């Protein structure tokens, strides 16, 4: 750590900050809204995580232990919806809100009131979704993919779920518009597009993906609604509709959604690895082009999620090969991160540990994705626990670890205080051991033939399920440490210097610590921009 500048808390008194409930309810400051998004995401992670623990407790042994199969199916469905739309996506939006204006030298997001609206939609959306547990017919239980005809058999909670998904989609689209407009119009003079930190680039591309695909999900669920209540037959075979068409539409949204969840993670890792390697990022421009290539390819691979519906051979080949093609730009990224570390002066503070774990474990998830892309193999793996292991490796030690890396990395700048490095490292090791004990055995279960979305299973799967459940509880409870570390840092951490990480570059580190409530009221001068550009 380099103690370049001591904290100056005097400016805090000149910030004209609103106080009390109004500060949060009427918030237009990007930092306040970013904080609200992050706290909201954390709450959703814990609710969704509790559901995951219910699932793993039920699967600890064969036989039905605690819950009935319908409730089990609700747990898997709502766990997924909460983690994707309530956890990971708002966490990225929170980080974008906090960091993009600081990194591009803008005083705030371009549309602050829209920003407030985007956030405040979310608590209503998720309250509505969670209330479905208390209405006749219960919560959604047909899987997060909402495939008809199963999803159309839901009870009174069906319209609540559809409305909740519309609200989540609207929030994401408005947030994405704000990010694009901010980056395209609010950059300080001298901050060029190919001069921005990678986090801004990956978020810019993510925002375009969001605008293209969230409306597609909205269209799909609108059609489900009209099929259910207004007598249309979009997906009803008895009325001349086609349930497979829903799968095509859903996955046209669903696959880019995977990259919406992971591209900002690439951005964060591209910030952290150079900092703790004390070297500029290797191949900055290729990173940008690789991100754009991944985003483009994400639109032409959707049917690899549905090889088993029976599609023409040409279709199978096209979607198999296009999926494999994604490994090329992803490989470029992994190579560049390794090359950045090569001969670097590495240190292993908590953000770097999480970034390295991301690098190893996300790559495992990527490789099992390549296995799933092979059509004849996919016929065996489809709907098995192998798929569950694959996407959890991508999303937990992938997206979630990157979010944690980002929080540890920028927390000193946000709060003005350092976190406890020792407890941070304990949190890292418990998380990493827990996540691998939890998800790695699921590869074996899937290869042995255990289907996903079942509350009971054959005794042949008992041992690895027990191991997986033990990992789940280690991982789940170790996240309480994360809350402790953050809380402890904010309340009583040691004062953080302006640039707490020796190798950190970027405009955010040119601001005092904690970042003032109103930052970059005047655009940063060229000398500051030149000092901040470290790639």
């Amino acid at each position, binding site marked *: 750590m380099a103690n370049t500048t001591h904290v100056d808390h005097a400016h805090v008194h000149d910030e004209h900050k609103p106080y009390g409930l109004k500060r949060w309810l009427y918030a237009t400051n990007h930092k306040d809204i970013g904080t609200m998004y992050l706290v909201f995401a954390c709450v959703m992670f814990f609710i969704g995580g509790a559901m995951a623990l219910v699932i793993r407790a039920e699967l600890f042994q064969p036989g039905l232990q605690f819950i009935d199969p319908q409730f089990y199916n609700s747990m898997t469905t709502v766990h997924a919806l909460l983690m994707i739309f309530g956890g990971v996506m708002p966490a990225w939006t929170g980080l974008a809100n906090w960091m993009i204006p600081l990194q591009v030298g803008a005083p705030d997001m371009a549309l602050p009131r829209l920003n407030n609206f985007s956030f405040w939609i979310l608590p209503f959306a998720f309250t509505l979704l969670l209330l479905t547990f208390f209405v006749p017919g219960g919560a959604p239980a047909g899987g997060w993919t909402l495939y008809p005809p199963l999803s159309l058999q839901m009870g009174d909670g069906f319209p609540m779920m559809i409305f909740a998904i519309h609200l989540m989609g609207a929030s994401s689209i408005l947030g994405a518009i704000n990010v694009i407009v901010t980056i395209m*119009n609010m950059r300080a003079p001298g901050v060029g597009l190919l001069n921005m930190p990678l986090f801004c680039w990956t978020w810019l591309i993510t925002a375009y993906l969001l605008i293209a695909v969230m*409306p597609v999900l909205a269209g799909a669920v609108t059609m489900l609604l009209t099929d259910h209540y207004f007598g249309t037959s979009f997906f009803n075979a008895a009325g001349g509709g086609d349930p497979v*068409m829903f799968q095509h539409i859903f996955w046209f949204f669903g696959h880019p959604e995977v990259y919406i969840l992971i591209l900002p993670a690439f951005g964060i890792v591209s910030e952290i690895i150079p900092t703790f390697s004390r070297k500029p990022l290797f191949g900055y421009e290729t990173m940008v082009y690789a991100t754009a290539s991944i985003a483009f390819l994400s639109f032409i691979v959707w*049917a690899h999620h549905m090889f088993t519906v029976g599609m023409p051979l040409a279709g199978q080949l096209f979607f198999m090969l296009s999926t494999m093609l994604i490994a090329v730009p992803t490989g470029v990224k992994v190579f560049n991160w390794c090359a950045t570390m090569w001969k670097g002066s590495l240190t292993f503070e908590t953000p770097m540990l999480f970034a390295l774990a991301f690098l190893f474990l996300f790559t495992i998830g990527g490789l099992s994705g390549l296995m799933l892309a092979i059509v004849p193999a996919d016929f065996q793996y489809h709907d098995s626990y192998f798929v569950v292991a694959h996407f959890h490796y991508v999303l937990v030690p992938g997206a979630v670890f990157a979010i944690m890396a980002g929080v540890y990395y920028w927390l000193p700048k946000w709060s003005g205080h350092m976190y406890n490095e020792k407890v941070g490292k304990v949190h890292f090791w418990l998380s990493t051991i827990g996540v691998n004990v939890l998800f790695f055995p699921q590869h074996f279960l899937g290869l042995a033939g255990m289907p996903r979305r079942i509350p009971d299973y054959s005794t042949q799967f008992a041992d690895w399920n027990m191991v997986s459940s033990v990992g789940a509880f280690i991982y789940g409870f170790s996240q309480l440490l994360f809350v402790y570390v953050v809380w402890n840092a904010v309340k009583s951490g040691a004062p953080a210097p302006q640039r707490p990480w020796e190798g950190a570059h970027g405009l955010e580190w040119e601001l005092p610590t904690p970042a003032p409530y109103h930052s970059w009221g005047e655009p940063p001068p060229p000398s500051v921009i030149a000092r901040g550009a470290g790639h």
Partner: protein
Amino acid sequence: MTNEPVQADEGRDRSRRVRRNALVLGLVAFAFYAAFILMAVTGIRG
């Protein structure tokens, strides 16, 4: 002081650009929503 009108013009210009960009992006999003429903109505299969 002499720069103030210029800065105000730049500010207004940027506000206009921000609003225009946001509107265009909103319309693009709506077009995706409508196009996929229309595609399903007209029976084009994926």
